């Protein structure tokens, strides 16, 4: 279980996060919602240990995350970040293989795992292509596959920052499925999404973040109400269906 207690962070005198507490339970998918600049990515950076908080602490199974050796941490926690600055002409399969680095597999086991992850995101035909020559959506699939390759047997937490932002419908659903499989295996997942309907489809729990503060947290039905979402994004949101899951439409038009 990953727990964050009273995280606060200031940057250049501005409050980025204020007293945020979350608990990511094993087997549970938490979706983070909030407008641009709400502090979602920053919260994930703190939860991953990439960035220290000004105050508050992050615990992984009652252990201070910052005290865990980086190599061990990489086996316990994987994260997909929004920026992917890779600009060297690696092959797709080489990029995915880099995700296996913390698992310390042999050559054969790595190749097997890479093939498995490529197949999960239907990347087999691109395996030997130059990564830099791919489209944005394809690159995102490769990077997500790399992160999922890192999720081995001992992995406890997966953090995903807008992992579907450039994917088409089919790959969005493939990834959602893959995330659910990981959660079912006991991983605690936290995922930032902007698509309300995808969020409602994926989430066990939803956390709403606005201007660095947590405004609501709880099960989908309780938190994702038209009123709360309209206020969160400052745009009219209507719920048009509730079965099999809540469906939202939004807009001024």
């Amino acid at each position, binding site marked *: 279980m990953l727990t964050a207690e009273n995280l606060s962070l200031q940057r250049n005198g501005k409050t980025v996060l204020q007293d945020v507490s979350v608990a990511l339970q094993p087997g549970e998918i938490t979706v983070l919602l909030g407008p641009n600049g709400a502090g979602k990515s920053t919260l994930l950076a703190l939860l991953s240990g990439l960035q220290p908080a000004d105050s508050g602490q992050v615990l992984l199974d009652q252990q201070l995350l910052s005290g865990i050796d980086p190599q061990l941490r*990489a086996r316990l926690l994987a994260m997909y970040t929004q*920026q992917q*600055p890779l600009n*060297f*002409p*690696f092959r797709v399969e*080489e990029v995915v293989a*880099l995700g296996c*680095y913390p698992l310390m597999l042999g050559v054969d086991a790595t190749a097997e795992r890479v093939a498995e992850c490529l197949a999960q995101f239907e990347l087999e035909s691109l395996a030997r292509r130059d990564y830099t020559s791919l489209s944005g959506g394809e690159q995102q699939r490769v990077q997500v596959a790399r992160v999922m390759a890192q999720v081995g047997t001992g992995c406890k937490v997966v953090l995903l920052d807008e992992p579907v932002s450039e994917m088409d419908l089919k790959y969005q659903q493939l990834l959602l499925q893959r995330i659910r499989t990981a959660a079912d295996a006991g991983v605690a997942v936290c995922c930032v999404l902007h698509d309300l309907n995808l969020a409602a489809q994926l989430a066990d729990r939803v956390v709403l973040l606005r201007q660095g503060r947590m405004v609501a947290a709880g099960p989908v039905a309780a938190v994702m109400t038209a009123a709360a979402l309209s206020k969160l994004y400052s745009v009219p949101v209507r719920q048009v269906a509730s079965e099999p899951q809540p469906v939202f439409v939004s807009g001024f038009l």
Partner: protein
Amino acid sequence: MSHRNILFILWFMLLLAMLLSLTTGPVALDLTEVFDGSVASQVFWQLRLPRLLLTLLAGALLAITGAAAQALFRNPLADPGLIGISAGAALSAGAMMVLLGGSVYLLGGLMLPLAAFAGGVLTTLLVARLSVTLQGVSVTNMLLCGIAINAIALAGLGGLKYLAADQQLRQLSFWLLGSLNHSRWQDLLVLLVAAVPVLWLLPRYGEKLNLLLLGEQQASLLGLDVLRCKRVMILLIALGVGAVVALTGIIGFVGLVVPHLVRLLTGPDNRRLLPLSGLLGALLLTVADIISRLLVSPAELPVGIVTALVGGPFFLLLLTRRKRELRVC
């Protein structure tokens, strides 16, 4: 072509180039004369052999540090010469040469390499500080930083020339052009002190540098101690470049051209790129040295002129191919 074949071909060509280098020059030399105490054998032991060894080590060091710098800055244009590391090392060593005069050879000739190393570390830190951010590397900043440092170093070296006595001025000028001319056994020993850790350790960082190419955050999430890795890289790059600059002056473009050629052969994987760059660097500098001796025989051109004549146009070619990417930044 498989990795094994490329290795085999490179080693074979290197052996050929070594033989050619030993036997080429104003004095014709037959390898059967090496042990007979003749003039030819003296030329071999006192001139040709130390020169060849210096060339091999300098070429390997320049190329492998170039490849490492490109991984550190996550940019294939990051050559230690272009981004000012060589110039910083040269300014520092040049100052030592002029200000200390004859006492440069204190500490068994270690003063110049130490000064060059210190200059190299300082400039690498400066460039890294100005161009590497969490979001990525600013190519513009990196190259502009190189321009500024090169300009400052040039001005500083100009000032030093003004201060220098005649004898030092000549020494300084030839040294700056990049020359393999003054190879003595004791210099080789100094170079070896730097070359052993650099050539031994850098290839062991291949996989870590691959992670770093994904981005610093991504590498950190995969378990790499990024700060520590970057520090080791900066020290090794500065050590390699500093030692070479101290002994040969500025031999440009080897660190840029060689890793590029290797990437064309085997792709960007640093586990193969680093050792192969060392090998190809040694080969290319040996060939460049042979050319520099043949072109105006019995005199010789400083080898830095030959590498710049080949490397400069190559760099321009790269720029035209990368124009689109550069404009984005």
